[in-house]
């Protein structure tokens, strides 16, 4: 469960309302693959990931980024029950995808950088603090069913 103050909830809701979830998803996933290239291990079937331009322009990366961020968006609507919201996805990432949960933390921090870049001045330290709580909560929820 993520404990956001009323101000933090307001900041998250206000900013998220202005996010182009489709685009930001692709950018965040792309940057994950560029900045932490070992994360490419999960995406052998995605085709050309040989350079930053190739990654950022890759249609499969964009599509998957969109999927991931839409899922994250669902989490934002259910901050009181992230573990329940992400239970099935947690099982999937453990049992079928075999993803080290460390990667969820990496993606969360990349997303925060992308939001800072998009929102500039509006991404105040307080807004960042609120989002850090959210990404940490989502990462924990996604790791919750691991065994």
């Amino acid at each position: 469960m993520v404990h956001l103050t009323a101000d933090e909830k307001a900041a998250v809701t206000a900013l998220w309302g202005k996010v182009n979830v489709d685009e930001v998803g692709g950018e965040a996933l792309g940057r994950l693959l560029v900045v932490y290239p070992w994360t490419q291990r999960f995406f052998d079937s995605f085709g050309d990931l040989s350079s930053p331009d190739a990654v950022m322009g890759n249609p499969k990366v964009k599509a998957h980024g969109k999927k991931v961020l839409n899922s994250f968006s669902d989490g934002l609507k259910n901050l009181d029950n992230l573990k329940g919201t992400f239970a099935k996805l947690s099982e999937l990432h453990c049992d079928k995808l075999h993803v080290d949960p460390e990667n969820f933390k990496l993606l969360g921090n990349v997303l925060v950088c992308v939001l800072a870049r998009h929102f500039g001045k509006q991404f105040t330290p307080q807004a960042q603090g609120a989002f850090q709580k959210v990404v940490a909560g989502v990462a924990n929820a996604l790791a919750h069913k691991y065994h």
Partner: protein
Amino acid sequence: MVLSAADQAAVRALWRKLGNNVGIYATEALERTFTAFPTTKTYFAHFDLSPGSAQVKAHGKKVADALTTAVAHMDDLPGALSALSDLHKHQLRVDPVNFKFLGHCLLVTLARHYPGDFGPAMHASLDKFLSHVISALASSYG
């Protein structure tokens, strides 16, 4: 392990652009660290951490100077930062996990102020540079 020539060039180019504002950005990064990762405040119980604090600003300047030193010595970060590493280990006794929080908040600060420059390749170069700095700072911890 040394940063590639391309990564070094990217970091140097951005640092030139930051000019005299490195202190301002380091101060903002510290503020972000205290807000987003409140456990880091435990090392600054003796500071006024309210917004605009002169102590935080002075500390930001120290961090900025250290980073500028690092940028000037990317071929030998452990050597250039060895005194700082000893300081953090023996006197300040900071758990090295905290270096990553400040590193992340530096990236966030630069992304916020230089969106046009903070493309994926620059993001990667900066992240690597900061990882090397953190490694060098933690090098005396044994």
